[in-house]
């Protein structure tokens, strides 16, 4: 199937269209909010919240007997929020570090959730099947109303982000200072955490409890690599998240119906790996290239200054010297000499070299230039 055919299919096929839209919107909103979680060093918060939502789903089913997704998600929302505020409580009231608190709540709630799920499975009730789809997600069960709900929450989230942008930024960067300026940081904190919980709960049906945190982290981690501006990072994270959703859905739909959630997560991880390696400033590849280039430049400069020190002992700076004396110098190679000739700093004549006027001036200014660069 080629690309055009696929796009046509997305437009015409109700299920595929719904899933594509749903996963794209979900990716965008989790990417946006994930940036905040990552910058607050609360990367695992998403994981804890999604796991904490599981008992809520099971309890909602037990209480109502319904399998209607909105009811179950409401249960997930409530237990997700309870989990989150317990985590906050543990961190502020005890001396435990946040990773310990997150781990505790995650396993406690998840264990309780699994317990309830197995209990439900043993019930003589034909309606129970399918609750375990929330473990790994099942995008195929998305319907139009689910997508609408996601769109509304995303819209709300955008409005709140735009309104309180400066408050969010200062909370993320320097909470104590924000306090002294008169901002109620607790309110801002609760606002942002509530949106994170909401976004995660919305994603449970599609991606599932276990993989949901990747939707929060991967786009944000990838976006961080490309920019040094918070707004750009949030925008890119939303973009990467949305594309992960669209590509993931496409791959899973065309390849023998692979499970959508995991494919989306893998696509998002590919974004991360690509960004880690190829982003221009922070990426490994260009960092390594810059590192090697710097070393070469330094070697070149060292050789030039070595030659400069020899040349300046003569009155005529262009007095020729034998290449042999350069062998005493460690950084010297034939390559560096050739480069110096290319730059017109040095001229060669047989096995003799001499500095040009340009080379002499460059060498005498070398150290000063570096001082300027360091400033």
């Amino acid at each position, binding site marked *: 199937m080629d690309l055009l055919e696929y796009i046509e299919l997305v437009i015409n096929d109700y299920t595929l269209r719904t899933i594509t839209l749903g996963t794209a919107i979900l990716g965008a909103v989790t990417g946006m909010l994930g940036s905040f979680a990552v910058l607050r060093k609360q990367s695992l918060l998403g994981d804890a919240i999604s796991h904490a939502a599981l008992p809520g789903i099971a309890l909602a089913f037990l209480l109502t007997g319904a399998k209607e997704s909105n009811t179950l998600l409401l249960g997930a929302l409530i237990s997700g929020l309870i989990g989150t505020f317990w985590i906050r409580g543990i961190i502020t009231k005890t001396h435990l570090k946040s990773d310990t608190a997150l781990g505790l709540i995650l396993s406690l709630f998840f264990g309780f959730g699994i317990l309830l799920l197995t209990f439900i499975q043993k019930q003589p009730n034909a309606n129970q099947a399918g609750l375990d789809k929330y473990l790994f997600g099942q995008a195929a069960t998305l319907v139009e109303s689910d997508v609408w709900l996601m769109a509304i929450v995303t819209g709300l989230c955008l409005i709140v982000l735009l309104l*309180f942008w400066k*408050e969010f930024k200062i909370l*993320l960067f*320097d909470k104590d200072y924000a306090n002294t300026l008169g901002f109620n940081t607790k309110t801002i904190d609760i606002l942002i955490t509530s949106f994170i919980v909401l976004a995660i709960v919305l994603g449970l049906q599609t991606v599932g409890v276990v993989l949901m945190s990747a939707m929060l982290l991967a786009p944000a981690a990838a976006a961080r690599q490309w920019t*040094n501006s*918070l707004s750009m990072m949030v925008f890119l994270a939303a973009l990467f998240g949305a594309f992960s959703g669209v590509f993931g859905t496409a791959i899973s739909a065309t390849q023998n119906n692979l499970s959508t959630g995991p494919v989306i997560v893998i696509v998002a991880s590919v974004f991360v790996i690509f960004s880690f390696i190829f982003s221009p400033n922070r990426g490994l590849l260009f960092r390594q290239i810059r590192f090697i280039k710097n070393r070469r430049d330094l070697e070149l400069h060292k050789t030039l200054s070595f030659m400069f020190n020899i040349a300046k002992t003569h009155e005529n700076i262009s007095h020729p010297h034998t290449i042999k004396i350069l062998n005493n110098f460690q950084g010297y190679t034939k390559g560096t000499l050739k480069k110096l000739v290319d730059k017109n700093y040095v001229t060669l004549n047989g096995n003799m070299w001499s500095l040009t006027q340009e080379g002499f001036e460059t060498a005498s200014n070398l150290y000063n230039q570096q001082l300027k660069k360091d400033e």
Partner: protein
Amino acid sequence: MSKKTAVQIDDLTVAYNYKPVLWDIDLEIPEGVLMAIVGPNGAGKSTLIKSVLGILKPIAGSVSIYGKSYEKQRSLVAYVPQKGSVDWDFPTTALDVVMMGTYGSLGWVKRPRQKEKKAALEALEQVGMLPFKNRQISQLSGGQQQRIFLARALVQDASIYFMDEPFQGVDATTEIAIINILKALRKANKTVIVVHHDLQTVPEYFDWVTFLNVKKIATGPVKDIFNDDNLTKTYGINYKVSIQK
């Protein structure tokens, strides 16, 4: 004392767990002084500042700024936290950090505009960091980061400045640049309160000093009370510094 009182602290007691970090502090800081708070590690110096600023909740006691509660006088007070208290890899620029100093007067929701940007640029100029305004903050040196924090407080255009170890880990050039700004603030009749570690420079930099070690040991003009007796009481050892008076 004919001067107005800028900060008045009464019976302030702060505890983290069971042990008090600050015990029954009474302190009057007159307007227009450049004051050092000195004391050993764990003496509660940062805690004192944070309690005055409402970041920490005291167990007992009250603080007033020019006779009214801190909450009402917030706009008169600026804060320079310890440099190490934030993540400098945060995706933002020097100018952007300094702009944060204007957020308080803007209040909720309102965005900084041209006027705020101009103020931030002026503050950057004041601390000699204007050429670095668009620099990503992780690419600034420690001294430069400290100057950015100072500029952020200057933008607030406050009357009282609280600074938590502004000289920590900065080079000599930055130290001189910072102290000159502090002295200029004092000249403008601002009150500057600095948590300070280097006892040798106290007489040179400051005109007022508070000795603190959980309790307040002494407070007053440097020339009257910065002596071996108070240093010994504060640091617990027989401290001898040669002080040029």
